[in-house]
C-alpha cells in the first residue's frame, strides 16, 4: 500500500517569520504526485500551467511543476502528514 513517504523526498521548514513549509516530491514520482493533487484540490489560479494556486480542506498552498509545494499556516507535522495523505493517497 502506498504511503506519503513514497512520494515525498524532503520536508523543510522555512526561515523567516513566515513559517511556511516546503514539500519536495521525489523526482521520479513528482508527475504522479502533481497529477493526484490537481485531481483533488480546488484550483484557484494558475500561471502558464506550471504554478498552481490551490486549496484543500481549508488550507491554501502552491504547487510547482518542478515538484515542490509550499504550504502556509501549517500547525504541526501531523496536520501536514494528514493533508498530504489525503491529497496523495
Amino acid at each position, binding site marked *: 500500500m502506498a504511503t506519503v513517504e513514497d512520494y515525498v523526498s524532503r520536508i523543510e521548514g*522555512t*526561515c*523567516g*517569520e*513566515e513559517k*511556511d513549509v*516546503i514539500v519536495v516530491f521525489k523526482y521520479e514520482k513528482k508527475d504522479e504526485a502533481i497529477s493526484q493533487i490537481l485531481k483533488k484540490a480546488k484550483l484557484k*489560479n494558475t*500561471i502558464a500551467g*506550471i*504554478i498552481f*494556486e490551490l486549496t484543500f480542506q481549508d488550507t491554501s498552498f*502552491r504547487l*510547482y*511543476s*518542478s515538484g*515542490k509545494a*509550499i504550504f*502556509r499556516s501549517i500547525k504541526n507535522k501531523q496536520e501536514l502528514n494528514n493533508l498530504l495523505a489525503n491529497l496523495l493517497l
Partner: protein
Amino acid sequence: MDVQAVRQDFPILNRQVNNNPLIYFDNAATTQKPCQVIDAISDFYENHNANVHRAVHTLSLEATDLYEKSREEIAKFVNAKQPAELVFVRGTTEAINLVAYSWGLSSLSKGDEVLVSLMEHHSNIVPWEIISKIKGFTIKYANVNSDGTLDYDDFESKFCSKTKIACLSHVSNVTGVINDVKQIAKVAHENGALMLVDAAQSVPHMTVDVQDLDADFLAFSGHKMLGPTGIGVLYGKKELLEKIPPFQGGGEMIKEVEFSQNKGCSINWNDLPWKFEAGTPNIEGAVGLAEAVKYLEALGMDEVLSHEKALTKYAIERMQECNKIMVHGPCDFSKKCGIIPFNVKGSSSHDVALICDNYGIMIRSGYHCAQPLHQQVLKLQSSDRASFYIYNTREEIDRFVEVLKEIGQL
C-alpha cells in the same frame, strides 16, 4: 572582462534546471567552480594524493609542496606578510570560532566588552555569545541605519577602555553594503582593541589587503570565491597567533608529546600556522582554493568588482521598473557590491524563490543567517536575495526581472 569567455570555463552553466537554462544568482551563498579548479582537485587525487608533512616518501613530499605552495599563493592574494599568518580552516565560520575559542577563552573575562554590529552574519554573533556565557564578558551591538549602512558614529561611540575586540563584516551578506573596516580598525587600535574582519563577502569580490586594512584577524571561505567547500582561511597577525593557544588538539599541531611516569605528559606546540591545523587537513581544498585565486588574479580583482557593480546597478534599475518589487539597502551604488535584497509585494519570499526556481533561476529566501538585521533594522519578516558573480550577464538579469514582473501580477 570577457564574460562569455569566463562562462565557457564553468561546465554547470550549460545545464538546464526545470527545463530552463540555469541562471545562478545565489553567489553570496556559494559560487560555481571553473574547470581549472575542478581539474586541479582531480589532478591532486589522480597524481599526488598522500598525507602532508612528516612522511619522507615522494608522494607525501609532493602533496606537502602543493599544500604549502597553495598557502603562499593565497597569502600573496591578501598581501599577508608571510604564509605562516594564514591558517587553513573549514570556512569563515570555523575561522571566527577559532578566534572566539582560542583567543576569547584565554583573553576575555568579566568586565570586558566585545563590539559587533547588528548587520553581522550569525557566524560573527553566535560564537561570541557562546563564549560570553562561559567568560561573563559583555557584547555590545552597534546600530545599523535603516538603509542597511553602518552607523559609524554609534559603532565608534561604543568603544571604551573595556573593549577588547571589534568584529565587523567587510561586506554585508544581506545588503552588499561595504563597510570601512580600515577606519574601524584604526579606532579599535586607538582604543587598545583588536579588529576581526569577516571578509567572506569581500575577498571573493574585491582587492583585500590585510596590511592596509590593519586587521588583526580576517576570515574568508574558499567556496564563495570559486574554490571548493570545506576550505577557508583565518589570517592573523603573527605576533597574535603566536600568543594564543591552539583551537584543537591532535596530530600536526604538536612538535613533541613527551611522557614520563613522574611528570606525566608534556606537550610542545608546533610552529605557525600548523599549531592551529590539528589532524589531516583539507589538502585538495587548499589546492583548489589556490587555483581559484589564480583564476581571479588572471581576471583582475578590479575588473571583478567593476563587473559586479555594473550588474547590480543595471539589476536595481530594471527591478525598479515594477512597483511591486521592493529593493532594500542603500541607493548609493558606491556603497555596495553585487548583492540585492528585495521582496515582491503580495508574495512571500519563499514563494518568490520557488517560482524563480521553476524558471531555472536560483535565488535565496529567508533571513540569510542575519536575523537581527532583518528584524531590528530592515523590519522585514524575510527577504529574497539575488547575488552576482563573474559569470552573470545582463541577459540573465533581463530574464530574472521578467519573472519577477510575472510574480508581481499574481
